């Protein structure tokens, strides 16, 4: 019963919670470990990465300073030259060669490689220039002939100023005073500034130089304004920046605010034909990092930053170069991995270690779960053992409380019941060895499934010699399949097959080293619980059998029952024999669909025989005669006596016979009256009940010479059930089918609706009397 309970009140929710915790606890533990490790790893990675980025920024800042310094130094000759020129070039600029300018120019060109040329011009259009030509120097003068034609007069000199040769070029419409470097310097001077004026970089196609010119205005001794200019090639700045190592694979570039590249990797193809250095810009497709860094600079100004491109992080730094050109910006970038690579490696290692720790933690958790489950199984096993012990105790208690347990004269069915219950056997039986030693008699056999006892079976040594040998040796036989064992094969076929059992435990009972019987278990299922209960029952049975042996001495053995040979009478059960019909026809065997049946049940004779037995017998005889007469007068088909029951058939024919049910009901009322009257006279309660039904029965003659007519079937069963379940003694209960046949002629009182497994929901009625 408790096993099918939806809620087991004996099971505490704490147990369920404990079981849940046993499983979830380790899992949650592992998840916490994983979460903690992940958080720590992420935190470590972030800290390391921030450190690496900070370090990268420092490195880049250092690089930036270095580059700034280099650029400053690269452009420094311009500043120095401007200062010197203001002091050195006081002489008026004329068509005469300005020796000081030339000397200074050649010297600078010889020692400062980035300087490309020097210019000197005045407000009268005089123009002098010194630059390199191969290994020598070219001193150029803008000459105007009297006719007004202009030409460049080139004097090629060596390092010491010694003229090597001359040549000339046309210089149509060239006026130095309209050149940007001249105009810019003059404008700056007019504004009162003494600093240099820088032109925008411009390509010098003939020499493949990318030039920037710085100029300063000065006043010569003759009062004329002159402009001194120095041109610096940016090609070497490109070479410098290109060779600069920023991290492992970083780059540097100088651009103006419009993205035009001043110096850097974009300009390395400057010497190739057709390359226009004045039109090189940052390409957002190929240089997204520099482009983004420049855009950030435009918005935020100088500083470090992080740019992501193509799934890579770059550290960038941007700064202006105001000392060189107010619109120049120095950009540096380097992949983050160049600096933070160790952090990535450390992260991978951390992940590996974390996985290792998680794996170990998972193993630990799994172990805990398994251990928990094992503990739970042990707990259950202990519970089952306690349950077993408890059940054994209960069995013992029942055994101990059984009166006359050791008295062989009293049956003790509890022995086999306990055996079957505790061992889970399909059938448990106790057999006694008869005095001849060659037969075992079944004292009691209990079949669990049917909840039924039986007794009396006998097996002999002739048929089961091996089992008898085992019994005499006192050996217990325990075989899972008795049909496969030669010793028990015959027993299985003869006895066990009736309950389809295969497993057999054959336990001899010994008293004073002599066999006195056996305990047999068929299909036991609880092997571990067997030994104890078998031992207990064996002890009891041995004591019982030992007493029995004492009583079964030859002197005290009862005399044999006298045997009288007499003919068996089969037809005595019928007070009205079906063969006594007027035509004396024998009812053919078969199924009769509509047979009215009545069963009269008298209560246990012992309960009514409170007075004198003879008086009771007299009453019963008188009553039976009256009933017989009533049945005969009513023309009933048959009347049969079975123990304390009378079975009446109103008719038995294949054709519908409504009169048969009426006759039977009429007889029922008469019988009730007769019984009530007779019993009341004898001062006895109405100890009879009557049930009636109309339904199918089977009828047949059974046996031969003589054969006996017998009926059985559903109508008999229902009438029997109705008789047994009348609400009170002395009442007639009829089925719904009988009611339908009789309701027009008799009075009924409905009892109610009832569910009967074989018939479904049906009604029953109490027959009150005739209408």
């Amino acid at each position, binding site marked *: 019963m408790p096993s099918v309970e939806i809620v087991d009140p004996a099971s505490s929710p704490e147990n369920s919670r404990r079981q849940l915790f046993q499983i979830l606890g380790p899992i949650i533990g592992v998840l916490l470990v994983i979460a903690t490790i992940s958080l720590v790893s992420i935190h470590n990675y972030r800290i390391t990465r921030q450190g690496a980025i900070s370090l990268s920024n420092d490195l880049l800042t250092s690089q930036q300073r270095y580059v700034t310094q280099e650029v400053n130094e690269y452009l420094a000759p311009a500043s120095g030259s401007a200062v010197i020129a203001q002091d050195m070039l006081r002489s008026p600029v004329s068509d005469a060669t300005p020796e000081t300018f030339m000397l200074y120019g050649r010297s600078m060109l010889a020692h400062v490689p980035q300087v490309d040329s020097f210019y000197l011009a005045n407000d009268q259009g005089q123009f002098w220039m010194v630059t390199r030509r191969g290994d020598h120097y070219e001193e150029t003068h803008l000459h105007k002939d009297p006719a007004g034609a202009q030409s460049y007069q080139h004097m090629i000199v060596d390092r010491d100023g010694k003229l090597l040769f001359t040549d000339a070029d046309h210089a149509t419409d060239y006026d130095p005073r309209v050149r940007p470097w001249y105009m810019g310097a003059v404008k700056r001077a007019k504004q009162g500034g003494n600093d240099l004026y820088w032109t925008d970089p411009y390509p010098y196609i003939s020499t493949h130089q990318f030039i920037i010119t710085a100029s300063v205005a000065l006043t010569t001794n003759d009062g004329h304004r002159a402009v001194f200019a120095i041109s610096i090639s940016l090609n070497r700045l490109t070479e410098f920046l290109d060779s600069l190592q920023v991290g492992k694979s970083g780059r540097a570039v100088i651009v103006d605010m419009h993205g035009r590249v001043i110096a850097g990797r974009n300009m390395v193809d400057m010497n190739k034909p057709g390359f226009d250095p004045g039109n090189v810009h940052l390409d957002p497709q190929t240089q997204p990092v520099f482009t983004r860094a420049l855009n950030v600079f435009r918005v935020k100004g100088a500083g470090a930053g992080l740019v992501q491109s193509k799934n890579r992080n770059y550290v960038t730094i941007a700064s202006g170069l105001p000392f060189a050109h107010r619109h120049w910006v120095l950009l540096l970038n380097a992949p983050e991995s160049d600096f933070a690579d160790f952090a990535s490696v450390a992260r991978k290692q951390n992940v590996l270690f974390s996985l290792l720790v998680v794996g170990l933690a998972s193993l630990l958790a799994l172990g805990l779960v398994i251990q928990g489950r094992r503990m739970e199984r042990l707990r259950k096993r202990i519970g089952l053992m306690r349950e077993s012990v408890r059940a054994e105790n209960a069995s013992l208690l029942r055994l101990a409380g059984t009166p006359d347990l050791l008295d062989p004269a009293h049956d003790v069915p509890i022995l086999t019941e306990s055996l079957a219950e505790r061992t889970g056997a399909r059938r448990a039986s106790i057999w006694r060895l008869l005095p001849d030693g060659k037969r075992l008699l079944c004292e009691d056999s209990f079949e669990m499934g049917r909840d039924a006892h039986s007794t009396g079976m006998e097996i002999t040594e002739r048929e089961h010699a091996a089992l008898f040998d085992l019994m005499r040796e006192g050996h217990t036989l325990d075989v899972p399949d008795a049909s496969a064992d030669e010793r028990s094969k015959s027993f299985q076929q003869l006895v066990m097959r009736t309950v389809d059992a295969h497993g057999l435990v054959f336990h001899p009972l010994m008293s004073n080293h002599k066999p006195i019987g056996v305990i047999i278990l068929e299909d036991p299922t609880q092997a571990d619980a067997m030994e104890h209960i078998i031992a207990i029952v064996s002890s009891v049975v041995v004591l019982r059998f030992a007493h029995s042996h004492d009583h079964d001495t030859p002197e005290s053995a009862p005399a044999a029952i006298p045997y009288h040979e007499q003919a068996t009478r089969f037809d005595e059960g019928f007070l009205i024999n079906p063969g006594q019909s007027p035509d004396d026809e024998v009812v053919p065997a078969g199924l009769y669909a509509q047979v009215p049946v009545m069963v009269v049940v008298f209560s246990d004779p012992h309960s009514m025989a409170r007075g004198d037995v003879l008086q009771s017998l007299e009453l019963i005889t008188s009553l039976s005669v009256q009933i017989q007469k009533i049945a005969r007068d009513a023309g009933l088909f048959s009347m049969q006596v079975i123990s304390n029951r009378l079975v009446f058939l109103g008719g038995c024919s294949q054709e519908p016979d409504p009169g048969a049910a009426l006759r039977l009901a009429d007889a029922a009322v008469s019988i009730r009256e007769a019984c009530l009257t007779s019993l009341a006279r004898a001062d006895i309660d109405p100890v009879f009940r009557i049930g009636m039904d109309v339904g199918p029965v089977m009828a047949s003659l059974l046996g031969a010479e003589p054969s006996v007519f017998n009926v059985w079937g559903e109508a008999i069963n229902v009438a029997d059930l109705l008789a047994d*379940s009348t609400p009170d003694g002395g009442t007639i209960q009829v089925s719904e089918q009988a009611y339908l046949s009789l309701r027009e002629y008799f009075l009924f009182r409905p009892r109610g609706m009832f569910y009967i497994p074989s018939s479904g929901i049906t009604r029953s009625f109490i027959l009150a009397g005739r209408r």
Partner: protein
Amino acid sequence: MAEDDLGRSALDPVLELLDARPRFDASGLFSTRYNLHLNPGECALIECRDPRQASLFADLCTGLIPLSEGSVRCMGLDWDALEDRRAWALRGRIGRMVTDGGWIDLYGTHLNILWPQMHHTRTPLGTLVEKATRLGIRFGLPGLPVLPPGRLSALDRRRADCVRAFLGEPSLLLLENPVEMFPSDLYAAFLSALTEARDRGCAVIWLAPDDSAWRGYGQGASLHLRLYDDGLFSMRGS
């Protein structure tokens, strides 16, 4: 200990009242100490002239009456220590016949009979119907009654009372004057079922207004008690 399902022994008492003092204001049962110890298979015959008091005492045994002191333990479990869900489940193991029948007339008698087992167990309905029908026949009904209880005769209702109480193999039977109006055949069937239940280990409390209700069964009982306003007292000679 009561919370440990492994700790209970089959030899433990099925019902135990340990100085249980009900709260009068909450129950109407006199606030005195009640003591009772009922082992499996034992039957206590309790004489109580007041049917209402008998009914309240049965309520006390089923944990329906709050206590101011002491405890009532059923099958090793203290009612006060059980949460509602388990307490109701434990009551599902108790078979009871109450004085007023306790029938719900809105539904058929069969539903009234089957409901407790349908609510508390997973027993298939077919099995329950089969068992109930068998019990019904045993107690003198032609089958399982399906009419509402109010439309059954008083005697058939008493038979149905028996079916409901014995269905489901209860561990404790609380019977309030169960054999009132019983004819001899029903009385015999009732005693037969009662003896069978006790053999199975079911403890029984049989409350009756006087000892005539027990007829000859008094000798088979383990305890004879009287329920007065000031508690339970053993009957002389028991």
